[in-house]
């Protein structure tokens, strides 16, 4: 039994192991990337095959269910896209390419463990596996001053602080409920949340590490600096995969806190509102695209949180759907950024100018991606927002939805600014960007996926619904 249900993790472990042995020798970037891609693709196939399996292992701390498997597929698929996107790893020191891929694989492995962890200490361990790999990877950057060092230090400090708070919260929970198993907490905590203020504080403290991963107010301060300081390919990882894992864990914890509207709900609502407002208004004035995407991701975290805090089937399925869409749209934006920065430098609005002439495909990908993030139909971003609003109104959070809607209107301005820059004329004539076949394929994939899932969302949405039904 262990063999079959644990296969995805084993496959990804083997991938990391193979990459580890490759670090001992000398390989060209092409070889490293090819090996990573093939192994990740294999893992992806295995993970797909494991959809629908069920199981409980390692003294019941590790649960295989529809929710965890769906997220594992998303995580491995995201890892595959990140490898595929940074094909030459131009932003990373030449000699570190193998190590780089290894650490990304390990971080993804940590997230995979996280998806299945249903016990507090296991959650913490998985979280740390994923975080430590990233702490190492963020300063891997070639020739861009010392920004990346600052980014690395910020990421570690904030990470350590939020993990500390989470541990502190876990100690409270253990003290209150005398157990660390989520399944038992689900029975005990809702009562405590209703009667004991300490339980509310404990739940929020435990969630802190995931606010940090999700770049959610008030743990968002690292995001702009890390996005800006890390290499473009690293940012594409940091901006997407850990957030998927964080959403899953927040869903698990909201289930623990209980499905009724409680004080936890209101704290989360306040956090969501602050996240959206702070993220959107700060993004308005950014000129560096990665910084802008950092602030936009803070705002997106707010939208996802609205879905999570509704704590009913519709809202939580919406959050799952939203984060999948977010992953696709953000990776599409980073794909464009990676390809217009041949030396791995940061990209500003000025670099976008004339993009539609230099490469129509990149411009169209960016257009689809930003309109998706703005929530314009018929994209995946629209269905995500639509579902979230439906879920929240269903529970009666009218004010929250109206604030979110106003924020969407604010956000459309800076998304539009990106689209406009890509489609306006350049000040001086620049060379056309020649994309290799793989990159063209990837751009087309992003465009088709974002629009097609937006027009026909049924399959992914039903998968998301099935996944969250395991929580209810």
């Amino acid at each position, binding site marked *: 039994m262990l063999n079959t249900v644990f296969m995805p993790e084993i496959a990804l472990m083997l991938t990391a192991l193979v990459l580890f042995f490759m670090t001992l020798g000398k390989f060209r970037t092409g070889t490293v990337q090819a090996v990573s891609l093939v192994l990740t693709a294999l893992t992806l196939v295995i993970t797909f095959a494991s959809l629908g399996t069920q199981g409980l292992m390692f003294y019941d701390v590790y649960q295989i269910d529809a929710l965890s498997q769906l997220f594992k597929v998303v995580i491995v698929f995201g890892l595959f896209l990140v490898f595929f996107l940074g094909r030459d790893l131009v932003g990373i020191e030449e000699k570190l390419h193998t190590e780089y891929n290894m650490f990304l694989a390990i971080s993804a492995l940590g997230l995979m463990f996280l998806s299945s962890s249903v016990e507090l200490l296991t959650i913490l361990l998985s979280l740390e596996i994923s975080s430590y790999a990233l702490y190492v990877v963020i300063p891997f950057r070639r020739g861009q001053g010392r920004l990346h060092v600052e980014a690395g230090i910020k990421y570690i400090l904030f990470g350590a602080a939020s993990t500390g708070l989470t541990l502190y919260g876990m100690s409270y929970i253990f003290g209150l409920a005398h157990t660390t198993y989520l399944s038992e907490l689900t029975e005990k905590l809702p009562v405590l949340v209703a009667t004991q203020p300490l339980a509310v504080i404990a739940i929020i403290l435990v969630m802190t590490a995931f606010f940090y991963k999700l770049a959610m107010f008030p743990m968002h301060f690292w995001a702009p600096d890390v996005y800006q300081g890390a290499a473009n390919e690293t940012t594409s990882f940091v901006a997407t995969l850990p957030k998927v894992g964080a959403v899953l864990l927040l869903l698990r914890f909201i289930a623990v806190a209980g499905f009724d509207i409680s004080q936890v709900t209101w704290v989360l609502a306040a956090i969501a509102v602050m996240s959206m407002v702070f993220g959107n208004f700060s993004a308005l004035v950014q000129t560096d695209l990665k910084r802008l995407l950092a602030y936009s991701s803070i705002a997106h975290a707010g939208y996802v949180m609205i879905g999570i805090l509704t704590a009913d089937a519709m809202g939580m399925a919406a959050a799952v759907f939203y984060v999948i869409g977010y992953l696709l749209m953000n990776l599409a934006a980073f794909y464009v950024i990676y390809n217009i920065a041949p030396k791995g430098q940061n990209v500003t609005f000025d670099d976008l100018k004339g993009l539609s002439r230099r490469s129509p495909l990149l411009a169209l990908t960016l257009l689809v991606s930003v*309109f998706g993030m*703005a929530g*314009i*139909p*018929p994209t995946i971003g*629209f269905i995500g927002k*639509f579902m979230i*609003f*439906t879920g929240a*109104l*269903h529970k009666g959070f*009218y004010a929250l*939805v*109206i604030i979110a*809607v*106003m924020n*969407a*209107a604010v956000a*459309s*301005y800076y998304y*539009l*600014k990106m*689209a*406009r820059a890509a*489609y*306006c004329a350049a000040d001086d004539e620049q060379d056309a960007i020649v994309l290799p076949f793989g990159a063209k394929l990837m751009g087309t994939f992003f465009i088709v996926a974002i629009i097609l899932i937006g027009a026909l*969302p*049924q399959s992914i*949405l*039903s998968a998301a*619904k099935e996944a969250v039904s395991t929580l209810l």
Partner: protein
Amino acid sequence: MENYLILNTLNYPILSLLLIVPAVGALVAMFLRGETLLKFWGLAVTLVTALISLPLWTRFDQTTAKYQFVELRHWFPALDLDFVVGVDGISVLLVLLTTLVMPLCVLCSWTYIKTRWKEFIIVTLLMETAMLGVFVSLNTVLFWIFWEGMLVPMYLIIAIWGGARKDYASIKFFLYTFCGSIFLLVAIVSMYIKTGTFFIPDLMAHDFGFSYQVWIFLACALGFAIKMPMFPFHTWLPAAHVEAPVAGSVILASILLKMGGYGFLRFCLPMAPAATVYFVPLLLVMSLISIVVGGYLALGQSDIKKLIAYSSVGHMGFVTLGIFLLNDAGIKGAMLQMINHGVTTGALFILIGIIYERTHSREIADNSKLGMFMPIYVTFLGIFSLSSLAFPGTNSFVGEFLVLFGAFDKYPLVGAVSILGAILAAAYMLRLMQKMVWDDSDGHAHHGDDHGDGHGDEGGHTLFDCNVREFVQLAFLTVFVFWIGLHPTPLLDMMDSSIAHLLHQIEAGSVMPEAVHHGESHALLNNAGTWIKNLF
């Protein structure tokens, strides 16, 4: 649900085809090369769409208010979302207007657009799908998807092929309409939660409480008032019109502005009848301000496009005025006025495009004394200007007359004020015509001097008269000017039963028991008529 629907009896899915043909045309255009091929492809696709739409006119059953040519498919079962399309007497005319205007948009861009034809054809065709989708959707979410999806191609049309301040204009257009319509989405979702359906006729039949209706009305009306545009939400329109390329202006004027009026008729009136009656005074005052302010602003413009843009604000004021009179003549007049505005203002923008291609200026002063050089052009200019100021015998006269008739019938003072708008329209259009056709105030026939370089006697100016392509477009629209002007009965017959049904819905809905229980609102309902009378 079946009570409101007549399924499509044609042996092909006509409305789906209307949506699919332009979209597929856009997809194919991605793989075509060569400017000429793309131009003809765009023209062919829009013409085919227009041909497909013709049975809507011939096979339409005028005796019923039900939705016709309906197609029903399951689309998104998780939310009970169906793909439902259909037309009734209100939307069928707007669908036909769209399909007939779109070929002209390609034709009038033939030489005006000089770069990126591929992208132009793609966005124009996508635009057509989105606009038709808005008019045929019988599902609120589908409606909103098309409504919002339309913003992207329109934004691109302004942002890529626009004039000097295209950045400003395109962003302003996008943000304004986006802000308005996003509240519409909240209303749609909230109505779904209340009733469990997205199906428009079901929502119309549902009895919402009065206070709930007020919110629904406000959320919807904001989006529609911006789209209309009504004073004070009109400021995006002149910017967008002035900077948009000629096809963009035509689409904006002929079709996009109609969506506001259509939205009022489809959402606000039938779904929130009690709230509509409650807000009638406010909307009437806003309409009157639109009419008068639009007219005055148009009077002061020196840029032809701006002048027409402000005149649109005034004309659309007549439309909302007609709608919120809530009587038969008013709503019919408003509907007719929407069609007329589409024909006339569309033609005026085509005329501006023609002259801009020749003189590269939109200033009235730079385009004066055209009568000497372009007799055919000024003939059309005369016809459409007269139509725009509602000269008897032209199309706008009928629409405006019906609206004024409705106004005097219900609130004479409102009618009296709106007459002012008609007078202003005459003033600014006649001024425009006089300056462009005859005016010689700057003392010389400068076109010959500027471009002739001494060869003036050989006719070396650039002001060639209309060519065949331009003539065809204008002549086509002229037919409608006189047809509607002299014999509007067929159009009025088309909308007759639907509007009677709509009025019936409002009447039934606005005396509902809950509104009566609601003491305060009841008083205000009674006061709706006296309130407006006290204003003047």
